[in-house]
Structures are given as structure tokens and as C-alpha cells.
């Protein structure tokens, strides 16, 4: 009965192989693919379309507290405030205005408040062309010196835009200069960058950027 023995040997071998395979597959012995590292969701603050600053016009629109803009609660009418300078011709800011950083123009040359503010009526601006401008018209004040920028801003080339590019379908929304620039220190401030791309195998070295 050589044949019978052979058959049972083969069948037995197959049974052992299949059992081993079944055990291996059910027990996930070959292993699952290693799941990629979980990337944390980005902070929603980075998705905000809000401007860096809030303009006077925004405050009026949202009916915020405007008491900071009522100069004559502290100052006296018909008595223009006197500017004080130290020995380096640096403006000495009075205590109530300590929060202002004087950084408009290079080399501290633009150190005279009355280049923009009207000393005889602090509620107004005085551009050099002699117009009287209110706080809400600050963009026209900036444009009285920065003419090319104002031209660009009016055509939508400078500054933020949102809303509709197609004006027949909806309005375009524009912002004032002071929504992004601090008028006393207009350079756009630095900010922390949003997280960069997460790589599957850790951060790869990028070429030295020097």
C-alpha cells in the first residue's frame, strides 16, 4: 500500500501547511503596513482672513468704543500740545501716548506729530495739500504723500482684496491702509509662520540657504 501512504503523507503535509498559513494570516504575522504618522490639524487662527489691525472705520462700523479718539477729553481746545525733543532730536512721547512707536520714515526724520495731525484741531488730519481729513479718511491722508501707492490701491493692485473679482456678480471689499500698517510705524510686522509640510520620514535636510 505504497500509494496510500504517499497520499496520506501529502495530505498531511498540506494540512500542516494550510493550518500554518491560516494561523499566519489570521494572526497578521506578515504584518500590516506601518500606518503613516498622524499629522496634527492646523490651528484655525492660520485660516482667519481677518486683517492685522482694526481701522477707525471698522470701529465705527461695528459700533465699538471710540473714546480713544476723543482727544479733547484730555487735551484743551485752542491750546495745541507742545512737542518735546531730547538732545538727539528724538521725540519725547508724553505718558498717555507711550504705546506709540515712532517708526515712520527712515532715520527718525518723520518725528513731528503735526506732519499729519492738525495741532489746532486734533480731531482732524492735515495733509500738506491743505485739506481737512477726518479719522475715517486716513487712507487719503497716507496717499497725500504716498501717491503711487494710493494709485495702486485705488486700482486694487496694492493692498488686500476680498469678495468678487467679477464686479457684475458682487462687490469687492477693500481695506484701509491702517488695517495693515500702523501709521506711526508702518512697516508690516513679522509673524510666526504656519507649520510647514510634514514629511513621512521626518524632516529631510534641505539645501543650506546661505
Amino acid at each position, binding site marked *: 500500500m505504497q500509494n496510500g501512504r504517499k497520499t*496520506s503523507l501529502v495530505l498531511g503535509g498540506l494540512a500542516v501547511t*494550510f493550518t500554518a498559513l491560516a494561523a499566519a494570516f489570521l494572526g497578521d504575522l506578515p504584518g500590516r503596513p506601518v500606518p503613516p504618522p498622524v499629522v496634527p490639524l492646523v490651528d484655525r487662527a492660520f*485660516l482667519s482672513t481677518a486683517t492685522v489691525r482694526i481701522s477707525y472705520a471698522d470701529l465705527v462700523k461695528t459700533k465699538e468704543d471710540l473714546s480713544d479718539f476723543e482727544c479733547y477729553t484730555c487735551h484743551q481746545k485752542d491750546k495745541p500740545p507742545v512737542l518735546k525733543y531730547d538732545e538727539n532730536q528724538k521725540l519725547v512721547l508724553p505718558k498717555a501716548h507711550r504705546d506709540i512707536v515712532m517708526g515712520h520714515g527712515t532715520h527718525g526724520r518723520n518725528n513731528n506729530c503735526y506732519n499729519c495731525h492738525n495741532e489746532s484741531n486734533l480731531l482732524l488730519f492735515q495733509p500738506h495739500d491743505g485739506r481737512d481729513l477726518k479719522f475715517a479718511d486716513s487712507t487719503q491722508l497716507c496717499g497725500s504723500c504716498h501717491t503711487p501707492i494710493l494709485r495702486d490701491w485705488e486700482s486694487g493692485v496694492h493692498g488686500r482684496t476680498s469678495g468678487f*473679482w467679477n464686479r457684475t456678480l458682487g462687490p469687492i471689499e477693500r481695506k484701509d491702509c491702517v488695517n495693515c500698517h500702523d501709521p506711526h510705524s508702518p512697516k508690516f510686522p*513679522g509673524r510666526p509662520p504656519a507649520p510647514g*509640510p510634514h514629511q513621512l520620514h521626518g524632516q529631510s535636510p534641505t*539645501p543650506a540657504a546661505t
Partner: protein
Amino acid sequence: MSCSTSPSDPADGMTRRSFLRTSAVLATGLAAVASSLKPLFEMEDFSSAEQFMQKYYKEMTPEEMGQVIKRIEGEVEKQYGVRPHVRDLRPMDGVEFVYALNLSRCIGCRKCVHACVAENNQSRSPEIQDIRVLKMPQGTFDMDRGDHTYAPESVPEKGFFYMPVQCQQCRNPPCVKVCPVHATWQESDGITVIDYDWCIGCRYCEAACPYWARHFNFTKPSIPADRINPDMAYLGNRPRKQGVMEKCHFCVQRTRAGRYPACLEVCPTGSRKFGNILDPNSEVSQILRTKRVFTQLKEDVGTNPRFYYYFDV
């Protein structure tokens, strides 16, 4: 063996013992085969018969498109738990889109990158981002010296400028030329679009693109339900499947409805400008007329992009 000498051995050679043995072997064999097929049954997004039988985008009638949109809305709701509003937006007449980016103003804050991901329902983990911001040393346009993994405390850093790179919407797109199934094509408003239901995932276009603008969905995109943008377009930001390509499409779901793209609206510095180049009063027309437009990126490869970089300081 004893069984072979048994007197009750039937003529066909089958005894109870050998029957039991054979069936035991067969059962374990079947179990092994079934368990080895287990991963197949765990797959979720088999394409439905409807999707399999779907016609080519350009050949579909409006009614067929309506059915496809209904199917997509159902699929998205099932998979992500959010009922979307999917539209099939066609190009407008007399419109050709152009993008302009002000290199003097960009501070490299990467807000555009994440606004794009949020708007376009891109996979969060693993991450797919259609915008890559390169930090470049001043005085060179050598792309090899760009770094996109920078992470300083604060940007901009002294001595560097930042160059966001995304799909350049070329007038002569190499990605379209290499697609073997015409799943990607250029539309009359200049946007190169992808039909995610027609893409076979061969990734030829990814290899052809000189801007690294095309990305492949290696896994099923993972998007938390509370971050799904339900305003979707068929050729735009509807969630992709595993195994298809995607790229920037100038936010067709917004721009073909007259709105600005998401990356533009989120830019804190107003460096990004978008509009219709055929309208002489649009921002982009003014920029190309009056600003120092440095170049189209990799001008020498002849792709002729609709994405321009310019300076104004």
C-alpha cells in the same frame, strides 16, 4: 496502515477516516485562502457600478451630469457625514484667469497653504498641499537653493525672500500632453482641470510637471467632518478618492462664481492678485502693464504659465 487492510473497504477507496481527513484539509485550506483575502474585504471605496459606467465629462448631457452630481453628494455624505452642495461650473465667456504674486510683499507666513487645504478638502493626514512656499536667499532664483521646510520664530527673515509655488496654469501644459486617458485638460478660461472619476492614477502628469504642482492621493484622503468645505465643484474641490491626482485649480468653485480664490483672501499682505486678463481694468492687467513682472517661473522650459511673479519696491 490499518485502514488499507480494513475488510469494509469500499470499492472507490473512500473510508470514513479518509473522508474526514480530506474534508479537514479542505476546510483549513479554504480558511487560509479566505483569511489571506481579508484585506480585500476591508477595502471601502470600491467604485460603484454607476461610477464605473460613467461617461467622459465632455460627453455627458446635463441630465447625466445631474445624476453624477447626485451620486457624488450621496457618496460624500456617506463617507464624511456632511451633505455637500456640488456644482458643475463651466468657464465664463470672455474670461481668462491670470494670477500675479508680489515677491516684494510676500512674508512667507504660509497662510495661503493652509487656507488652500481647508478650501479644497485636501487630505490632512497624510498631508497634501497644493502650495509650496520656498524660502530663497536674496540675489538668486536658483530653485535648488530654495527651502520649503523653514520654521523660524518669525517671518520674514533678513536676507531671504519667499516664493510660493503652485500650479502655474500653463498655456502649454506638459501634464495635459502626457495624460494617456485625457483625464486632465485645459479649459477656455485657462484653468487646467482634472476629472477625478476619469483619472487612472498613472502619475505621468506628476512626472511631467516642472513645478511639482501635482500631487497623488496614495491613501484615502482623511478629512475631519468639521473641516469639510461643503461648497464643492465637480472639477474642483470635491473629495478625491485614493489613487487619483490633484492640483491647484484656481478654486474653480469660487472663481467661476465670480469670487476670489481662497489663498488670495487669506493673504495678510495682499501679495496675491487674481483676475481676468481680458479685462483691461482688472488688477492683473494693471500689474502686467505697470509693474516689474520678473518672469514666468522656469520660462526656459516653454510652458508659458498664467502665473506671474512681480515686484513693486
